[in-house]
């Protein structure tokens, strides 16, 4: 019945659209509307256009109501119907990823993570007996394209579930879009406070909320014996929603520990020439540099400029970039990477049995070593594990039930560790760690008392 009502609405809408003016007049209307009513009345064409505008006003209202109704029906129908799939029918999962543009390196790593999870889950019989099929479309790292992609994935491709894109910048518009259709959006790289500030009920981030990511590092620095503790620090960050909130948290703790801020600055995310900023940091000559970066090229640019300026801080931590495995070392060389620190919640040598299995499967598929695997892979894989647990527990693909289940306070085990969501969809059960490149190995160094942590290399070796 729903389907027939929906198709009837569409026919009605189509018949109304047929009666609309020709495209050239639409263009004329837009121009005149911009210039004001006087021009409409000033010539005969204007009168005609004025009439059309009135007609169109009514038609637009009708069309809007019909579209809204139709959208809601699609949402109800699509979000609810997939639980009644025939046995063995593939289950489609829609994902928008940055396969080109600024986030392409991370987007590709995320794709590897999602694909690896799909391969593993299919090898173990799929989701409730349905083989998983990933419907991945590229968003070119563009928030507008993300919105269009999820609309297409849900309304045209009729995917049963949606996984998140890469970055906080894209996760928010993605979650807003899929929430209109009643879908859950489980994602692994959208942990910025601004994402959760939207208070969406359908959004779940399986990774560590980013605001506190630098806390263990800052606490370690502040707790060093006075004779070893650095005296000065520089803070420089991109104005990206992922990284900027991390810096004040670390700065506050370190300031409390008596570490003086000698330079603090924010640069636009679209910066391409980092030389003057890096020069300024180098001239400040702080013993600690805390860099709020979102990608490898940014960290690489600062590292290169520091080396050229013969500036070697005792401690250099970047909020993202060094956790990207071989992506990082191929850009900066293993020698330069030595001693670089990064906060994260996962690394290739993690003792977590689920992680060990995933790492083994990844290496079997792509080669390389555990240290070379990007943290993005684990973040994406965790998304799959979380949704798999929700599907299994709810016994179907009903998004409303999945959302309810994920909000129920349940703990889900993933390759990154435990996942447990608060009412905002933040994973508040995950621990923040600090990792360091030591030679060609990427190792956990913080929290210091954690049995899996190794001794931190301090001060950082020279470039």
């Amino acid at each position, binding site marked *: 019945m729903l389907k027939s009502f929906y198709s009837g609405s569409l026919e009605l809408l189509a018949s109304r659209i047929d009666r609309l003016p020709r495209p050239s007049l639409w263009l004329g209307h837009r121009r005149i509307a911009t210039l004001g009513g006087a021009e409409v009345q000033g010539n005969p064409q204007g009168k005609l256009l004025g009439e059309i505008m009135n007609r169109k006003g009514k038609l637009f209202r009708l069309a809007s109501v019909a579209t809204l109704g139709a959208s809601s029906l699609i949402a109800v129908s699509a979000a609810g119907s997939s639980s009644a799939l025939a046995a063995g029918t593939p289950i489609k999962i829609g994902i928008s990823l940055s396969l080109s*543009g600024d986030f392409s390196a991370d987007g*590709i790593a995320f794709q590897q993570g999602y694909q690896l999870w799909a391969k593993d889950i299919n090898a173990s019989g799929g989701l409730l007996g349905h083989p998983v099929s990933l419907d991945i479309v590229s968003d070119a790292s563009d928030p507008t394209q993300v919105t269009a992609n999820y609309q297409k994935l849900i309304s045209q491709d009729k995917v049963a579930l949606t996984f998140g894109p890469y970055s906080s910048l894209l996760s928010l518009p993605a979650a807003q879009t899929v929430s209109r259709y009643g879908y859950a959006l489980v994602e692994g790289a959208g942990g910025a406070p601004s994402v959760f500030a939207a208070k969406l009920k359908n959004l779940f981030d399986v990774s560590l909320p980013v605001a506190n990511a630098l806390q263990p590092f800052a606490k370690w620095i502040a707790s060093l014996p006075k004779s070893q503790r650095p005296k000065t620090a520089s803070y420089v960050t991109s104005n990206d929603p992922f990284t900027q909130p991390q810096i004040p948290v670390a700065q506050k703790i370190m300031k409390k520990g008596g570490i003086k801020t000698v330079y603090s600055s924010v640069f636009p995310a679209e910066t391409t*020439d980092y030389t*003057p900023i890096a*020069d300024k940091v180098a001239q400040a000559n702080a013993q600690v540099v805390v860099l709020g970066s979102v990608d*490898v*090229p940014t960290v690489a640019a600062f590292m*290169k400029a520091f080396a*050229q300026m013969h500036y070697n801080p005792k401690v250099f931590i970047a909020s993202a970039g060094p956790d990207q495995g071989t*992506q990082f070392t191929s850009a900066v060389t293993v020698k330069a990477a030595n001693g670089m620190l990064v906060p994260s919640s996962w690394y290739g040598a993690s003792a977590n049995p689920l992680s060990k299995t995933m790492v083994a499967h990844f290496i079997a598929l792509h080669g390389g070593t555990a240290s070379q695997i990007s943290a993005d892979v684990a973040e994406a894989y965790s998304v799959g594990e979380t949704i798999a647990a929700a599907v299994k527990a709810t016994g179907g693909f009903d998004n409303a039930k999945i959302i309810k289940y994920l909000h129920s306070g349940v703990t889900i085990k993933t390759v990154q560790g435990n996942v447990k969501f608060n009412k905002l969809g933040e994973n508040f059960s995950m621990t923040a760690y600090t990792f360091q490149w030591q030679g060609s190995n990427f190792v956990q160094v913080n929290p210091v008392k954690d049995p899996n942590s190794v001794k931190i290399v301090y001060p950082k070796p020279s470039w």
Partner: protein
Amino acid sequence: MSFTNLVHAVIDGILTGSVYALMATGLTLIFGVMDIINVAQGVFVILGSYLSYALSVHFGIDPFVGLLITVPTMFLVGIVVERAFIARLKGPEKTAMSILVTYAVSLVIEGVLNMVFTTNPVQINNASYINSSVHLFGMWLPYIYIFGFLLAGGFLGSIYFMLYRTRFGASVRASLADQTAAALVGIDVKKVSTICFGIGIAVTAAGGMIYGATNAFNASSSYDLISRLLTIIVLGGMGSLAGALVAGISMIILEDIVAVAWSPVWSNITFFILLVIVLSFRPQGLFGKQSARVA
């Protein structure tokens, strides 16, 4: 801000800006002669970066020596692209259509680069001078920026010599001024256009090599580049070689000074405010000709 910081920012701006000016010169030459807005220029720069990277990593060829291979290669790439896609554009919509066509070309090249080199960022690193610097007047100046400046100067000087001291240059300048009149006096405008497109792309090999030695890059780095290059030629005046040089250097100097003296957040904004002011008084840009914009 100390006086040393200011001087450092100005010197950084001159050294870096000259390389951007070189990349933009190719873009403005192509527009001046052919009325083609080549939005693929950014990805051609990255292609040049990757060629230098591949030669240095796989064959151990010094990036500067490698230019003997990459510059002619990029020239040939330019000729092929011009013959295959650009030469087919005709009529009053030619300029507008060129944006779509060159955008399509850039997407194809980006896709191919992603397939061949993956999206992992890389950097041209295996030459000792790339990470070294010289201490002059109380400041460290990286050799790669100094060499980049000299290289850009050499290329720009060569282009100037070609334009003003050779017979072919006279044909180019005649085509720049008026294509119909140039054809009437016997200049093969099609041939001039093809060669100019080749030269415009060839300079990206040099710009790309310096870019790749100073930044970690992947194919998507082209988006940041093209927006900068277009801004430079709009400020300098579309079709003006001198404009590209002056605008390229002044843009980076201004951004660097603002970043050092005030805040990096304001460096781009300040530049665009200046751009709006300049265009309010000179819509054709600093060195552009009004007629060129009307055409």
